[in-house]
């Protein structure tokens, strides 16, 4: 589903590579934790997967597409097959919960009928039914992140990328989000989650990929967070 082949990324302003000769493969339906200290290249990995940026060297394949050869105008179609969740939720403050999720479908030209069917369904999935008319600032952080997950998942993507989705949440709330991501993973969606959160990684016992200074230092199935230290 995601294939990095000897990928390096050097940002123009930086003299150390954000990713260095990274080779790894993530299969369809996997749940993968991407761990490593701040600045180790986790977000860069996700950005490259989304084709928000291009690698300096190496090849990337995502959902059967060679990103190197993917023309700019086809990038939106790639992104429709990938859901994304961030630490800061990225909701539109002046739109309700329903509208925030509907927005993601509207802007890719989905018909109203489908929106009115899919948005309530995904709200129920994330446990927010009954709150569709609230504005983001009338929700708790955990609830806001559920809206963001709902928006990422409403179009049934092949892949869900999450960049420290629990970074702003307390441990109890984080567990709820992790259960949600696990449920989404069980529908067959590949989930890649970058995180610092040791207890979550230790509890879930999923595949762990650890980066340090942009290099792969560990790739372990059913791993824990701090294995090498």
């Amino acid at each position: 589903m995601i294939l990095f082949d000897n990928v390096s990324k050097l940002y123009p302003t930086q003299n150390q590579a954000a990713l260095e000769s990274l080779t790894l493969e993530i299969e369809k339906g996997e749940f993968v934790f991407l761990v490593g200290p701040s600045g180790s290249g986790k977000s860069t990995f996700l950005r490259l997967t989304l084709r928000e940026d291009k690698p300096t060297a190496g090849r990337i394949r995502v959902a059967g597409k060679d990103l190197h050869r993917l023309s700019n105008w086809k990038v939106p179609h790639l992104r429709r097959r990938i859901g994304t969740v961030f630490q800061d939720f990225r909701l539109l403050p002046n739109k309700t919960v329903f509208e925030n999720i509907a927005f993601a479908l509207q802007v890719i030209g989905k018909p109203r009928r489908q929106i009115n069917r899919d948005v309530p369904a995904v709200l129920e999935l994330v446990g927010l039914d009954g709150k569709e008319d609230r504005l983001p600032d009338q929700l708790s952080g955990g609830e806001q992140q559920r809206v963001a997950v709902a928006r990422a998942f409403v179009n049934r993507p092949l892949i869900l990328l999450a960049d420290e989705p629990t970074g702003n949440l307390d441990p109890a709330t984080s567990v709820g989000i992790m259960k949600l991501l696990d449920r989404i993973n069980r529908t067959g969606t590949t989930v890649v989650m970058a995180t610092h959160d040791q207890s979550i990684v230790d509890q879930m016992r999923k595949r762990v990929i650890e980066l340090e200074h942009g290099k792969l230092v560990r790739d372990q199935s059913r791993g824990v967070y701090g294995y090498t230290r």
Partner: protein
Amino acid sequence: MRFQYVLSEITTGLRRNLTMTIALVIVVAISIAMLGAGLLIRSQAETTKGYWYDRIEISVFMCNEYSTGAGCADGAVTDAQRDTIRQTLESHPEVDEVFYENQEQAFERFSEQFDDSDIGGIITPDQLPESFRVALQDPEQYDGVVSAVSGLPGVQEVTDQRQLLEPLFRTLDGFQLVAFAITIIQIVAAVLLIGNTIRLAAFNRRRETGIMRLVGASNFYIQLPFILEAAIAGLLGSVLGIIALFVGVELIVGRFIAPNLQFTSWVDSADVWAATPWLLVAGVLFSMLASFVTLRRYLRV
């Protein structure tokens, strides 16, 4: 394409960026008014030139018995010489029409011109030269005709009014050039200003556009509301600019210049009407183009 979504996106965009929209409308209005003024100056210069061109002629004065000069060595022009001159003129490709004026006619014209003065009494017809008045095919092309007849025997002098009017034409050419330069500068300034305004609008909505990119909205879909916003502002601005132009022409030219300066015909609201479709198209098109170019640079995938 979900039309309703686009529509609501535009109206909220226009409303949210009301000050920006107003700025955009004003920029376009001023630019279109200036652009229109430039076009009107051009057509005014064109009209004035045409007005004077129609009156340009070459005069070929022939020798009378008092004449001195190289061509008049044989005294007054002979019938044979006059026929040669006439044939030369009439067969010349740049000549449109040839009129003959004999000494009596010259005297009448002379008397009319100096009606009130005493000179009329002193001059007699035989002191005046007979002449050919030559209208040209193209008033710009007079050199050929002048040189064709200048050396002929019996020709005392060839004068062309073009020489007299040359400074006027040069001034008009200058006007046209300046108007053209102003128009170009105005368009460049307007495009930059519109681009900047749209960039600010895009910056204000970077949250939305960021999310749109993330969920896979096409560039077209992301840019469309901005471009349509610019088009609407462009249309409003053009209409205002054109109205200003009508008012300006009516007040400045219609009330003030035209009644007082009658040496040519002046631009009027008919000329503004003629320019209106172009100005509307230009206002809308340049606004859309400016925003499109800006967004291409600013809202990359």
